[in-house]
């Protein structure tokens, strides 16, 4: 089985919070004003945040999981 989730490039992130507003699962929080932190347990990798991020610093990751 594979799981999709997103990963944030912390160096490019402006921590504006546009992604966390967009996330339908409330899986993104701005960690202490430094960067967007994704809760990988909640994230389903829909990519809404990646499309919103003005810095273009969110990418969708696909990982194979052993079930």
């Amino acid at each position: 089985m594979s799981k999709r989730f997103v990963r944030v490039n912390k160096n490019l992130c402006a921590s504006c919070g546009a992604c966390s507003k967009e996330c339908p699962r409330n899986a993104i929080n701005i960690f202490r004003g430094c960067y967007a932190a994704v809760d990988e347990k909640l994230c389903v990798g829909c990519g809404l945040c990646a499309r919103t991020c003005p810095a273009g610093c969110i990418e969708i990751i696909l990982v194979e999981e052993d079930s």
Partner: protein
Amino acid sequence: MKKNKSWLDYLWLWTIIYFVLGFFNILFAWLGMIDFILPLLFAIFGGNKFFCNKLCGRGQLFSMLPKKFKCSTGKTAPGWLLSRYFKYGFLAFFMIMFMNIIYQSWLVFGGAKSLNESIKLFWTFNIPFHWAYTAKNFPEWSAQFAFGFYSLMLTSALIGLIVMMLYRPRTWCVFCPMGTMTQIICRYKNRG
């Protein structure tokens, strides 16, 4: 899943109200200091970007407009615009221009210069704005600051609107001087 809206989601109205008030009476431009001081207070004492994340009317306006009117290409901005060099360079430029506003107000205060009742867009184009200064019972230096500050706010809003249309809605947020400044503070507070 639709998110419940709170009154905090309507703060984009503040951005519009601010410019309308300033159009009729320039002294209202002083209210823009709220947008300067609040983010810094949150960053310095709270170590967070609560202002950018929840309160910034400008950010809300930029994300709301393209949703309603489809006026954004949605393309990622070019790399140089998103780079740290540009962010920090823009912050430095912005601060120098802000200092200049204070300096001009100081000159008017000291009587070395007379009040210039116009606003300057993009630090270049002078636009007469004399109708907005009728409350003559306020000192002239405060009006000079208001004209300068209103120019700064309007110019940055216009830059924000342009990049909103050309690229993604909240592209302004990437190099917003207040955002950059508060992020530097937050990163400093949470270093190590």
